[in-house]
């Protein structure tokens, strides 16, 4: 087992990179809207079908489709909030939660109507490219998504901290009434934040597709994990999402190695529960 520990750690870190991508959008949405976006998994599924359609119908490689999917998912998220979630929920927390749940039910089943329950995959020229890291060789695609996840986290952080729009979003997140007084329209900022959060999924989908699969249920494969990462890192914190994602990747991987891949899956919820009980604000969370 010991000889597998190092490769397993490394695998965990790299797989965690993909998880970071999914958690970034979720943590942004939580940080601004203070709600658990239940539709996150379903929106990832939508993005993956988008990337898959581009790959199979238009012959566009997922990596080239990346900017397109980011833009498309931003627009989709923005419209979804402005047209459905924000309107239906009138900004009430509990209603937003129910609204995102409703959206997720609709999207999952719409995908079932359109695409049936089939599992779909693509094979790309680089599907089997590997990089030898000494202790283990890893798929190139995984390294790329790892690097991209870190870069995206940095970009999001810079956007929120350094741009006027980012400051406006943060202002609304903290003091909606005060922000309104200085002329910021909260609902607009909420829609914008939701759009950006969903746009992250567009990137995640393109990076995930070459090494994963798509089906109407694919969102559920990741959604619990993304919640765990966001809470572990501290809801609303980008640094938290990165560290949390990598930690969960490692936990999942090493847990599977020592407890078996069946029982090992219990490590993620256990770590999650432990963090909540011992430090509920998460590693980087500012407030409960």
């Amino acid at each position, binding site marked *: 087992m010991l000889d597998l520990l190092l490769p397993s750690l490394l695998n965990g870190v790299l*797989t965690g990179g993909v998880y970071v991508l999914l958690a970034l959008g979720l943590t942004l949405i939580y940080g601004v809207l203070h709600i658990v976006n239940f539709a996150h998994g379903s929106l990832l599924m939508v993005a993956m079908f988008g990337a898959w359609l581009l790959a199979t119908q238009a012959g566009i490689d997922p990596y080239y489709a990346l900017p397109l999917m980011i833009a498309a998912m931003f627009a989709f998220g923005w419209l979804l909030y402005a047209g459905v979630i924000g309107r239906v929920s009138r900004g009430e927390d509990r209603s937003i939660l129910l609204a995102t749940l409703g959206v997720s039910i609709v999207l999952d089943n719409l995908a079932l109507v359109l695409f049936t329950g089939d599992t779909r995959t693509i094979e790309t020229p680089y*599907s089997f490219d590997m990089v030898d890291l000494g202790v283990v060789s890893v798929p190139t695609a995984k390294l790329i998504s790892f690097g991209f996840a870190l870069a995206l986290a940095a970009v999001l952080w810079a956007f929120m901290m350094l741009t006027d729009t980012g400051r406006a979003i943060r202002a609304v997140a903290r003091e909606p009434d005060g922000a309104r007084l200085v002329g910021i329209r909260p609902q607009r900022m909420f829609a914008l934040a939701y759009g950006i959060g969903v746009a992250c999924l567009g990137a995640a989908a393109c990076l995930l597709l070459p090494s994963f699969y798509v089906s109407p249920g694919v969102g559920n494969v990741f959604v619990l994990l993304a919640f765990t990462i966001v809470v572990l890192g501290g809801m609303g914190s980008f640094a938290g999402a990165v560290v949390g994602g990598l930690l969960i990747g490692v936990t999942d991987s090493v847990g*599977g190695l020592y407890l078996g891949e069946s029982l090992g899956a219990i490590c993620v919820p256990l770590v999650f529960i432990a963090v909540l009980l011992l430090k509920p604000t998460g590693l980087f969370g500012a407030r409960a």
Partner: protein
Amino acid sequence: MSVGPTRRMIVAAGAATLAMPAILRAQPAAVKVGLIHPVTGALAYGGQLCRLGGQTAIEDINAAGGIKSMGGAKLDALLGDAQGRPDIGASLVDQMSEQGAAGFTGCFASPIALAATQAAAKYNLPFCIDSGLADSITARGLKNVFRLFPTASAITTDAMAALDAINKKAGSPAKTAIIVHEDGEFGTGTAKLLGAKLETIGIRLIETIPHATPTRDFSNIVLRIKAAKPDLVIPSDYNNEYVLLARTLVQQKVDLASIFSVAGGGFNLRFAKEQPTIAENIIDFNHWYNPRSPRAATFRKRFEDKGTVFSWELLFGYFAMRFLADAMERAGSADKEKVVEALSTSTFNDDLLTYGPTKIVDGQNQNAHATALQIQQGDIHVVYPEQYSDATVVFPRPKA
């Protein structure tokens, strides 16, 4: 002289009515059959295919003149979505029996089948299982439940015999194996049976690796496999994990004599076409149409014309319905007692199946045997047993 109609006149009139062809008599009432499958939720993929198989069988039966012994009565499908929930499956049985269902086929997954067959037992309505391999479905003594297809234990016994024959013929290159299975009812059950039988065919089981559903990353498992250097990897998985495992095995360049799965969830034509590199030469022990049947090509095309990729679930759905309809044909009635009786003495036989005549004992067909299939150049071929094969097995697979 009597005034009223004579006895002879009445008899004559009766005979005339009997002799009158269908033109004058009203079309016989359609026979309703219930199809219960999970067509939404986590099991939607297989459920939809089983349903489509059943619907296609009904189309074929009706196009060929319906149930002839019942004056050409047509079959009428009642469709139900069990959503992957046994309680809803059971509720559908109640609903359909009140709508007049004379029998059922279903349910793709064993847990739903267990609940639904039990509900149908209250009415003694015949229930023909399509997919759903758990032995307990037919082994728990319900008189109304019939399965044309083999149990999980029968499949694994046959699979091991096939593996043994293929291996011996190639000079026994496979001496060790690792079983990888999903930790649910299907994978765990199959793995247990396989583990017990491998030794008997001279293959040493190095390890059994269960994994959760979903498993997002197979790197650890594959590294363990690579370190243990088995000749065979035997997966028993659902669709998604099957693809991920096979892909990671190729990525990590694990040197195997073969991948031999049993009822592998991901082994299908879509996989063969979308992942040509990974899929080539994988062997699965599973159901397929008999390629040597003269009707094989038209049968497959029948489904391809409906815009679906041919798959074993379709076969299950199709023949479960054929099996039920055949019993109604023999019984000459849709009466449940008679159909149940006809099913238990059924000798149903179709050369599209690799079975021979049916022999039912306690609801279970004793003559059901699956085949070894192999993906070769993007298509699926039967490679064992000889009498049904349309390609020669590639075993061990060529070195990369």
